[in-house]
Each structure stands twice: as structure tokens, then as C-alpha cells.
């Protein structure tokens, strides 16, 4: 979904930091902040072999668009690019990229953090973690 300075994609292939970066470049902006979420090889003391992301794609895009709109409202963000992976993602691979441009740096930092925090809270994407001895849906059980 690309609309009104907001670029949101859920992709089955490797994500590109440069694509997100290029999208948010703006001649009126003095700061760009990028967050890159990567897959680590351990969680809660166990070895992780890979992840699998499932998405309710239409709703996830809708919810991410709302979060991006909130950034424009709260932090006067100029341009936002949010790319999230779906499917099988390996160790060290990029799971998510958030890029935000802003007139001044401070609000770009704030907006970037806001997006990742809200994404983890309310965007319908589910992570299945594969360990050496099994797999489970993250956050599903108490």
C-alpha cells in the first residue's frame, strides 16, 4: 500500500533497507531514523533455528496505515515506510524495517519507536518460533 507519503508492505522475500530509506528521503527533512528488526538465534535460553510469520494481511495493512497516520498527527512525520516479512525467516534475516523522515531528528526517533511499539501491540501478525526441540506461537499462552 503506497499512499500520501506512506509506504506499507508485507513481503515474502528479503526486505531492503535501501528501498525504505529511498522512499522517505525528503528535501524538507533534516533527519531519517530507521529501525531494523532482525531474527536472533536464541530466546528465553533456548536455541532458535528460524521463525515463521503468519499475517491477516488486509487487516495488518489497515492497522499499520492507522499507526502511520497517528505518526503524522502526533509527530508531524513527513514520510514513513514500513516493511514486514511474512513466511519463513532465517536467523540474522530482517523481520521488519521502519523508516521515518522528519524536519528535525527528535520527532523521527519518537515516531520510529512509536511504530514498532504499536506494531507489536496491535498489528495482526503472528510469529511461530522454531527451536531445536519443537515450535510454538509467541505470546499465545500465559
Amino acid at each position: 500500500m503506497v499512499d500520501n507519503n506512506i509506504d506499507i508492505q508485507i513481503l515474502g522475500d528479503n526486505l531492503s533497507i535501501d528501498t525504505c530509506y529511498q522512499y522517505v528521503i525528503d528535501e524538507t527533512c533534516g533527519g531519517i531514523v530507521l529501525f531494523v528488526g532482525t531474527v536472533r538465534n536464541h530466546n528465553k535460553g533456548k536455541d532458535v533455528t528460524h521463525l515463521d510469520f503468519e499475517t491477516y494481511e488486509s487487516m495488518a495493512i489497515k492497522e499499520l496505515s492507522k499507526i502511520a497516520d497517528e505518526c503524522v498527527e502526533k509527530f508531524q512525520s513527513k514520510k514513513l515506510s514500513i516493511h514486514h516479512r511474512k513466511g519463513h525467516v532465517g536467523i540474522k534475516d530482517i523481520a521488519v524495517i521502519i523508516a521515518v523522515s522528519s524536519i528535525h531528528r527528535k520527532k523521527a526517533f519518537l515516531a520510529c519507536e512509536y511504530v514498532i511499539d504499536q506494531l507489536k501491540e496491535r498489528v495482526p501478525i503472528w510469529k511461530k518460533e522454531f527451536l531445536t526441540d519443537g515450535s510454538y506461537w509467541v505470546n499465545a499462552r500465559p
Partner: protein
Amino acid sequence: MMKIRCFGIAKDITSQAFITIDEQLPSNVEGLKLWLEKNYPQFKSLNKCMIAVNQEYADDNTPISTSDEIAIIPPVSGG
């Protein structure tokens, strides 16, 4: 017939990407949650699931009908 989309652990519990309710359809989200817990007791052991109606989070009082797009949203874990 009411069709419900299942994702993540909800899909594992029901073993299906869609489940259907054929009779005594719940009239709102609360009714659907009760139906789910009755027919799939494993839902009780999960962290709280949300229900989305037409791709928006819905509270217990939200009415539902066969023409709505309804989905079970288990606790999310993106990023």
C-alpha cells in the same frame, strides 16, 4: 452460515483456516466468544483473543451477522 477466519494458534486449535457456525448463530462478539469456548475448550488456556469484525477490533457488544468478515485474533507477535 457464519464463517470465522482463524490465524496463528487459533488455526492450530481448530485445525482449519475457516470454521463455520451453522445454527443458533451468535448475535454479537460476546456470543461468539462463548460459542468458541464451548466448542473449542482449548481457547480457555490461551492469553486473551480478540475478535475482528470487518478488519477492525470489535468489543463484546459489537453485533455480527453472516455478511460480516469475522476473524479470531490471538495475541499478536509481529516485529
